[in-house]
């Protein structure tokens, strides 16, 4: 356990990444994730294709069950193999396909090149260790430094993420910190190794609104300092609008629309996106009723062959839309939609 990543010969496969001819840091092609359960098999992710550039933020929006978290976990290969299987797809990180990496190679990637923060700060920290132990451990696992140096580094990290009196806080236990502070600690642990990509899986959902704001601002600030890309997963359109350069809208395991933030919000090209935007409660204009999307989320065990949104879609052509499988198609230089009739969609 005392071996450090530096002391071990890193497998050649990741020590010298292949030359890339795109600027994309992460390039996902046709990723499909299947869950085989006793109740049946279903695709949690179906043909996901998207990419993210260095230093940019990609927001992934979708309701619960749309497959956003599964996607993040698949990037880090955290899903156990029964029941999750990856029948097809490529996840190119710096040009190398993560799906071909062995478990050992993935462990070099996790926490160092790609890190993840989770939704519930209450349970993301081990209750039996203090903050110093937890941050120092991740530091010392990836770099050869002494306990004292790690403690200093931990204090600096806490200061960086905006925790007051870090020298005192570093000896606290998680139960002695508030939710916002715990999430800051999680962020500190995640950026400690200056990762290239941060996966943030609903990092502010469990926090109250004022803290939410601070955490997001912190993440963007750190992004600039560290130069990392962020994939921000949320069901909150507001958060995504504020922080992302590009947005992917997911539904029932598929990406239905993918474009820069402005385009998604001003000129959405998918009825689901329009539905989401319309359902946002407003303070002015019509304030007596909410406008939900008609219908229920689909049963993933029995998805129709065609568009998963067809039963709830106000502009669908039922014959065509139920039978034709959908996938993202570029309709404008940087705007892709999976809708078969984007011209019928008015934002």
């Amino acid at each position, binding site marked *: 356990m005392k071996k450090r990543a530096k002391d071990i010969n890193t497998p050649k496969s990741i020590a010298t990444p292949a030359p890339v001819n795109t600027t994309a840091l992460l390039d996902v092609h046709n990723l499909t994730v299947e869950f085989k359960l006793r109740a049946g098999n279903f695709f949690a992710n179906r043909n996901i294709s998207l990419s993210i550039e260095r230093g940019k933020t990609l927001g992934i929006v979708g309701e619960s069950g749309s497959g956003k978290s599964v996607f993040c976990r698949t990037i880090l290969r955290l899903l156990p193999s029964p029941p999750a299987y990856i029948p097809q797809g490529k996840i190119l990180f710096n040009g190398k396909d993560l799906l071909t990496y062995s478990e050992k190679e993935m*462990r070099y990637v996790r926490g160092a090149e790609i*890190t993840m923060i989770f939704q519930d700060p209450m349970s*993301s920290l*081990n*209750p*039996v260790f203090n903050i110093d132990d937890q941050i120092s451990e991740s530091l010392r696992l990836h770099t050869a430094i002494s306990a004292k140096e790690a403690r200093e580094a931990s204090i600096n990290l806490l200061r960086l993420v905006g925790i007051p009196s870090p020298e005192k806080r570093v000896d606290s236990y998680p139960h002695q910190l508030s939710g916002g502070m715990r999430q800051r600690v999680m962020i500190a*642990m995640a950026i400690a190794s200056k990762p290239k990509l941060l996966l943030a899986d609903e990092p502010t959902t469990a926090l109250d609104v004022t803290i939410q704001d601070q955490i997001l601002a912190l993440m963007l600030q750190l992004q600039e300092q560290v130069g990392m890309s962020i994939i921000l997963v949320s069901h909150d359109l507001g958060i995504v609008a504020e922080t992302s350069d590009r947005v992917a809208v997911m539904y029932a395991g598929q990406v239905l629309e993918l474009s820069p933030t402005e385009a998604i919000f001003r000129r959405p090209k998918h009825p689901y996106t329009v539905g989401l935007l319309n359902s946002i409660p407003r303070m002015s204009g019509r304030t007596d009723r909410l406008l939900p999307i008609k219908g229920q989320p689909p049963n993933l065990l029995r998805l129709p062959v065609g568009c998963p949104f067809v039963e709830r879609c106000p502009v669908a052509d039922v014959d065509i839309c139920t039978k034709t499988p959908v996938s993202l198609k570029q309709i404008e230089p940087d705007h892709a939609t999976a809708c078969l009739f984007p011209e019928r969609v008015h934002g």
Partner: protein
Amino acid sequence: MTNGIVLETSSSNHAVRGVLNQISSWPLTLKIGIVIISIIALSGICAPLLTRYDPIIGDFDDALAPPSLEHPFGTDSTGRDVWSRTLYAAQLDLQIGLITTYVPFAVGLILGIIAGYFGGWFDLILMRLVDIAIAFPFLVLIIVILAILGPGIQNMYIAVFLLAWTMYARLSRAEMLVVREQEYILAARALGYPPLRIIFRHALPNVLSSSIVFSMSDIVLNILLASSISFLGMGVQPPTPEWGAIITDGRNFLLQAWWITTLPGIAIVITGLGFSFIGDGLARLLGQRNIQTV
């Protein structure tokens, strides 16, 4: 309002006071149990100081004497001072209790958490072994093994070690099944920590509580087991003092010399109570909801 004088407490004082504060907030049963067991343990350790009589060689002239100032617990059939024997036996019984409990504890814990974390064939095989072990009454199996191996404390240890780890394996595996789904374990995996580190450093401290609480009752049961085995003549051999052995000796004289059997018996009861209190107190302290106490 002080007149400007600030008393600087040294940091070691702070630490001591911090610890004392924590201890004083422990549940009452825990504190009582610790006191009881400490008294018994100390008595055992300080036995030579608390009695001048030899526990093994007795004065035949003074056999079967009732409790008196000279012999607080009376004497047995060969004139040995029962108080002295009880004290010296305390050492042995506590030692037996701790070894027969914590060696299987360690083995069962390690096997259980590995099985719980990884699952697969290791888990399957381990659980089948556990099933076999718990299918039979524990005492019967111990006696069978001792009948094969022969009497004596060493063989009793072997017999217990062969069987008792299964309880701890089951308990710790069950806890591990819950803990491994916790988000901090997922976070640890997401940070690239290797599985053994996750199991032994991150998961283990969170898996311990139910095993520790259970071990308290187990100590009591094991002391009783040792006493029963000695009672049957298959454990501790005479003239070594052990509570069960003393009780056996006194059986034949129950009507004439009740003190030989009864008073060491009370010692067992008090020890058992002490450990049960500790178990109960620990359960409260550790916030257990599903505990099995004796």
